[in-house]
């Protein structure tokens, strides 16, 4: 990058472009805030909202982001990364399911007698299932690794009292203990099954969405683990929209910090 051997006065003058000028006065471009793109990985996660506002208004003229505009906290970043990961795999599975359905519909119209159709569909579904299993296994391998776990432990120690402690955080649970309340807001008849695996340490559970087998059915998204103000214990709140189709909805409960799967939540909305 070129550095100007300018004195401070000259530099100050260049920083303030004039909207209009007197005749014969030579204009100078202001020194740019930067002369290259931001290439680091934070741009993977950057907010793209600004791309939609055209920028000719002068109030936005100097609003370039600082070069190292990193996301808020480690926790936020990890959460966002996990969300991205889940979204991609969910999208992939959903699309696979859709393809499978199309195959099934088309084959059932004319080819089921040969038996090839069902066999093919099973193969297709197995393929997608295998991919999903591979993914979960791989996540497990990596996330159970000692270096990563030690990093998390180190973080807690480094952050001291301000950092969330998995052993003492209100609202955390472990799979072995009871006392988890479930609150359902629904006008429909509903069955809820929460299957948490035993785990020696306490953790904060997290859920994103529960999906029905049919990808056309919208997922259940209004649910969260919270701290019950009265009992100071964890509570799982689930809200079923009135027009939610009857189906069995399932999703994985994960540890908010390690993202390891901790169990399964199933909600059956009855007709």
């Amino acid at each position: 990058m070129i550095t100007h051997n300018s004195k401070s006065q000259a530099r100050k003058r260049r920083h303030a472009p004039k909207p209009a000028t007197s005749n014969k006065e030579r204009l100078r471009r202001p020194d740019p805030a930067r002369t290259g793109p931001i290439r680091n990985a934070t741009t993977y996660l950057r907010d793209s909202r600004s791309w939609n506002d055209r920028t000719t208004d002068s109030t936005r003229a100097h609003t370039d982001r600082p070069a190292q505009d990193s996301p808020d906290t480690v926790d936020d970043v990890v959460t966002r990364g996990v969300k991205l990961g889940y979204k991609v795999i969910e999208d992939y599975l959903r699309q696979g399911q859709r393809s499978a359905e199309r195959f099934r519909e088309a084959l059932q119209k004319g080819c089921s007698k040969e038996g090839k159709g069902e066999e093919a569909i099973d193969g297709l579904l197995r393929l997608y299932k295998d991919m999903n299993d591979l993914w979960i296994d791989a996540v497990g391998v990596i996330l159970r690794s000692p270096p990563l776990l030690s990093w998390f432990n180190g973080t807690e120690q480094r952050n001291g009292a301000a950092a969330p402690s998995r052993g003492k955080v209100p609202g955390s649970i472990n799979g072995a203990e009871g006392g988890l309340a479930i609150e359902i807001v629904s006008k429909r008849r509903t069955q809820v099954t929460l299957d948490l695996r035993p785990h020696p340490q306490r953790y904060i559970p997290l859920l994103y969405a529960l999906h029905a087998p049919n990808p056309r059915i919208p997922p259940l998204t209004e649910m969260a683990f919270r701290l019950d103000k009265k009992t100071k214990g964890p509570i799982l709140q689930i809200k079923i929209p009135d027009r939610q189709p009857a189906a069995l909805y399932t999703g994985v409960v994960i540890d908010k910090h390690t993202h390891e799967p901790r169990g399964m939540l199933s909600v059956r909305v009855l007709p």
Partner: protein
Amino acid sequence: MTVARPIKVAVVGGGCASIAAAFELTRPEHGGKYDVTVYQLGWRLGGKGASGRGPALRIEEHGLHVWLGFYENAFRLLRECYAELGRDPKKCRIADWRDAFCNDHEIGIAEQSRRGAWLAWTAHFPPSEGLPGDPLTTYNPFALGSYLARAAALLRALLFDVKTHDGDAPAPAVSPAQYGEQSNEHLIVAVQRLLRYGLVATSAGVLEALTILEVLLKTLPVLPENMLTTFIESVAQTIRRGLEDVVMADDEARCRWEIIDLMVAIFVGAARFGLLYDPRGLDAINDYDCREWLRLNGASERSLDSAFMRGLYDLALAYEGGDRKRAALAAGQGLRGSLRMFFTYRGAMFWKMRAGMGDVVFAPFYEVLRRRGVKFEFFHRLENVKLSHSGDLAPGESPSVRALEFDVQAKIRGGREYQPLIDVNGLPCWPSQPDYRQLIHGAQMRRQKWDFESHWDRRKVGRKTLRVSHDFDFVVLGVSVGAIPYVCKELVARNPRWREMVKHVKTVATQAFQIWLHKKMPALGWAAPPVTLSAFTEPFDTWADMRQCAPEESWPCRPGAIAYFCGVLPDPPGNSIPSDPRYPNVRREEVRRHAIDFLNHQVHHLWPAAVSKPGRFRWELLMDPKDNRRPKRHKQGNERRFNSQHWRANVNPTDRYVLALPGTLKYRISPLDNTYDNLTIAGDWTDCGFNEGCVEAAVMSGRLAAHAIAQSPSLEDIIGYDHP
């Protein structure tokens, strides 16, 4: 006394970058703050994208121009341009930007089989959500999550949709979205194929899983990198071991495997080189050649020499000096380009223009800019950019441009403004020749064949000097890098970075030809959908089926097929551009010979019915604009008939394509650079975020140049500028 006045901006050159800068600086929101004048060589705008209407009002391009679905900046500005233009669809066929393009979902590559025959592989890339230039509020195409989702789509496309065309009638294209509409028989075949390649698919699933891991792990400040690398490498080895033997016996499986093998190498390389955490992003590997970097990360020689790989080099014309043996493409930019091309396209991967690029891009911009008050000075050839004297600079003052010197190539009768457009059935278009009637001594110029766009034709009728603060305040230098050594001698001499830039940022000459045929493509032996195909044999490795342009031309009998071909044109020995004025004609004749040989000896691999026997193209297929009617059925033509077609040797310094060679991108200078504080540069040769020769890079550069002057648009509004 101080008098407020608009800021005068001289834009030199009329290519994509210059026009984008002018468009940004004259947005209504600026309230007329910038008084812009465009100085253009010859009679038309467009630079390397200029086109003209020739005999039969046929479209004559500089080369092959296809817009890609990730050209977000280019499409966005063009859409705004058409919206502002407000053409009446009842009066003009191309009133909306969507009228100007047609989608091309077929991408093709050609490969020589082990038996020596050429196979053409085409894959259907399904339409993706949205359109290029749409708002991005809810969808960030540059997020890794988006890349992964698109990777999944690509793999699905490979599994279902790759087909070969070896002369037999091919199966119709099928997209995943269309599975339900296909015949049951086709579906069963598709499912069986899927299961046959289950192993490949599972491997692809593993790769996908790895990328998910990367999403998870890249967000952690402290990373077990060794563990990740080891894990990825061991998976990659397993995949390779398991698949090599299985797929090598089958051409189709091999084609898929080669792509997957390359993807494995990319994943391995990303981990090994720490690309996800490097603040330089993909630029960290720009000193490597693409193939070299992939080889380092385990890609097989077979994959590195695959048609897919050659296609990527062909699309980037990545041959130094035009020499096929010197294929070179900076790895980081090559990877960035591939990610953008395959994973961030919207609507369609390729967008083909329905008419000439001049007609559908530069004519609308010209009209809108004229309405905004932009002045156009045609027939102005930049000769010199004069700098302030070093001794005149105050302490701390940067050097600046004090004058621009032009040759005036022609003057307009009556001192009027040159009117550059012609009407083609209601559509404003650029002609292939200037309108000599408007020029003083125009008839004489025509007789003497003045070539206003030739670097070697220096004839002029006068000179003009623009002085700083009188005639301009700021300069947008939009000529291509090939011309910089000739017109910016002082800038180059004064600044070592400029010297390094002109030394390292290289260009390559290109050759192109267009043919119009009586017969339709199926009658020539190509029954697949219209395609853009690369990796074919030299010297014309890329072919685009441009049948969609036929209705826009004015032939007595509409062409059955239109085909554009292009490739690099090898430079003569030595590094400098020859000064011999006969040089361009010698090269043009060379291209004509190449085209004739190509049609006689190569094209039958794509169009088997276009030859009467091996080595003999059916010249009677070509349409001559002088013919009033279709030639007699069995009358044989000869190769002289090719002279009625259109071909070009793009050897002018400004016409040469800009290369992205390994180890050179760091020498590029950004339009934001303030070395000369009243000058900014614009073009696909600048450091513009996407450093590869294309329309999108030029538009991004033009927007950056506008930002350098007006601090608008903001850098975040330049889509994809901040990209790993």
